[in-house]
């Protein structure tokens, strides 16, 4: 159960981990700004940090869109198919 | 019917004649109109008349049912045997020429034998069919089944 302890330790340090992650992310964006774009096949490839922005927006969009889709149209009770089969 | 004297006497006189006529048709079949089928029927008709007058039991004592059954089969076997004999002697099935030396004699022998087989079978089949029906009637009577036919 050593592994479980390691995980527990990591979880207890989660705020520190979060800071490290944020620093890492900032470094990534910075690097993207500093380094010249390798390609400009699409207009957005010239924009630094576009991928970061796009990832964030895509994730948010998926979360909200799927939730909307579910509650508007698709969600059913778990026994939905049972009473007919 | 059985107690009717006239019928009994006339039948006793007629039945042999009918049967004789049947045999006549049988054995003249190869040249003149006739043959096994007609002969068998006529012969069986004589027998049926006998049954009508004297009853089935008496008739079955003359020719038992098992004998009819065997004869029925034997007639066809005779027919086939002649046919096979033709093959064995080097001809085709039902080929009569190889049977005897002379052409005419061979044909005559073949046809008469074959027709005899046919006659026996036809006669016995008709007799058997009649027996089956007749016995069913007596069985019904024994079992007191109501006869719903008019």
């Amino acid at each position, binding site marked *: *159960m050593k*592994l*479980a302890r*390691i*995980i*527990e330790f990591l*979880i207890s340090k989660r705020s520190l981990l979060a800071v490290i*992650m944020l620093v*890492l*992310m900032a470094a*990534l*964006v910075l*690097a*993207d700004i500093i*380094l010249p*774009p*390798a*390609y400009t*096949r*699409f207009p957005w490839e010239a924009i630094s*940090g576009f*991928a*970061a*922005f*796009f*990832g*964030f*927006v*895509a*994730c*948010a*969009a*998926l*979360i*909200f*869109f*799927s*939730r909307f*889709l*579910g*509650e508007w*149209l*698709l*969600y*059913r*009770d*778990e026994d*939905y*198919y049972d009473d*007919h*089969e | 019917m059985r107690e009717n004297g006239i019928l009994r006497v006339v039948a006793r006189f007629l039945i042999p004649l009918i049967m004789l006529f049947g045999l006549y048709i049988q054995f003249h079949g190869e040249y003149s109109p006739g043959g096994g089928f007609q002969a068998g029927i006529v012969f069986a008709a004589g027998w049926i008349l006998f049954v009508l007058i004297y009853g089935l039991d008496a008739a079955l004592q003359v020719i038992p049912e098992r004998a009819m059954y065997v004869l029925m089969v034997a007639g066809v076997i005779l027919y086939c045997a002649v046919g096979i004999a033709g093959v064995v002697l080097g001809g085709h099935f039902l080929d009569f020429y190889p049977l005897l030396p002379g052409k005419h004699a061979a044909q005559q022998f073949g046809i008469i034998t074959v027709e005899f087989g046919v006659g026996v079978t036809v006669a016995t089949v008709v007799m058997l069919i009649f027996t089956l029906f007749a016995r069913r009637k007596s069985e019904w009577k024994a079992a007191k089944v109501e006869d719903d036919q008019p």
Partner: protein
Amino acid sequence: MITSDWIHPSLVLIAGTLVVPLLKGRAMQTWMVLLPLAVLGVLWLAQPGEYGQMAFLGMELVTGRVDDLSMVFGWVFSTVLLIGAIYALHVNDQVQHVAAFLYGASALGVVFAGDLITLYVFWELMVITSVWLIWRRGSEVSFNAGFRYLVIHAVGGVVLLAGIIMFQFETGTTRFDQIDADGPAFWLILAAFMINAAVPPLHAWLTDAYPEATVTGAVFMSALTTKTAVYTLIRGYPGTEMLVWLGAFMTLYGVTFAMLSNDIRRLLSYHIVSQVGYMVAGVGLGTALALSGSASHAFTHILYKALLFMGAGAVIHMTGRSKLSELGGLYRYMPWTFVLYLVGGVSISAFPLFSGYVSKTMIVEAAAVDGRALIWLMLAVASAGTFLSTTLKLPYKTWLGEDSGLRPQEAPWNMLLAMSIAAALCFLIGIFPGLLYALLPEPVDFDAYTMSVFLKEMQLLLFTGLAFCLLLKYVGGGPKISLDVDWLYRRGGPRLISATGTAIVTADRAVRRVALGQLMRLTSHMERKHGRDGKLAKSWPIGSMALWTAIVLAMLLTFGVWR
């Protein structure tokens, strides 16, 4: 089928499987490990070429065609058979083992089939054998799901057969290369392949059936059926424009519905749809780079998806629960499963150093080289979504999150071993992509580890993670199921049929009432005329036969004689 330099791996597998019912306990377990190893050995010996030609109905069958493309799939199929067999060692159900091996054998048969007839035979065999992996779960739900699976694939099989027949008629051959017919044959065969590749709206069999399969069976299923379909698409339909759009649509469809799923294996199943979407899009792009991407993505996908299914299966096996809303806080009790699952998760999300990265970026790159902006964006969204639900949402809700009060044991050693092998392979391919690229039919002119690709991918993934953390409370879920296309045949079809049925019955009743009234009048008239109560009615069956005879005769006579 056997020559000195070629032994058909399916034949080896089938022959070996026949022994399985005779074995028990340790002997059976040893045999189960040895058999896939033997297949791997057979593949090692295989030389490119065509083998096992047979004449059949005036056509030439090629039961074994070995080239680089079929070898890629051959390798990964036999590898996953080995992993799956180890994973299933503890299962004491010979039917499942036999079904799984035969299923693997037929999948191998498909990829080595040189003609469509052989392909069709193995294609059908694949269905018949795999359905047992669903049924052996033993519940009524799984029986029904398996039955639906069977029906859909039966229909797919008929479509494929029809396509093959027309193809043969059109081109005079049944060789399986690029399908260059342009009549209905093209579309029928494509439709059949698309059913197996789970292209929406023909995908519902997958997400319906896989979550109901046995814990070990799902591992095989996740690996084989859709990937044989990808193989057939790569072989038969490279560069079909429609597939680009369908594939991109699939990736989004899969991730969206995965977000809605509560059952962990249903979530993963939707990600099969999504990932296969990348491959289908790659096939549609049709460039050498894209096709290499599709083939290698199929290769890596089989490994990490098997790993994910094994992780989810281990949880189900140990806890007996499969719903996100009923799980949580398992990290203390199943930490190894957690970590190994995460390896699969980061692989499917295409984190650098893991296998998904080296293959998925190849397809995305191919889309970029082709200048398809919209496709590129769609694939990028799907990447974000994949990371979101397989690596963030699912593990979070299963191992972390609210404690569900479950106190399971760690998974058995054989499960962990199988997962470790898969995880090691994911890692290996991620670090040394050259090993994978060397297997591909075309030389690969692509390097995943350039700074620009790396930066883009990392940004995309990490900021997705950021959004997840911030928006966690908005993530949907709960004990619900979501409708999908299968509604059409589970509820819509029956409803339609019963509605039509009611309409027909009503109409029929009305018509018959009138007709019977007339008939009764006629009958009573006849009866009055002929006396004898009911005699006419009694002889009706024979009468109707005679009537029909008279009708047909009259018809022929009218046409023939009195013209």
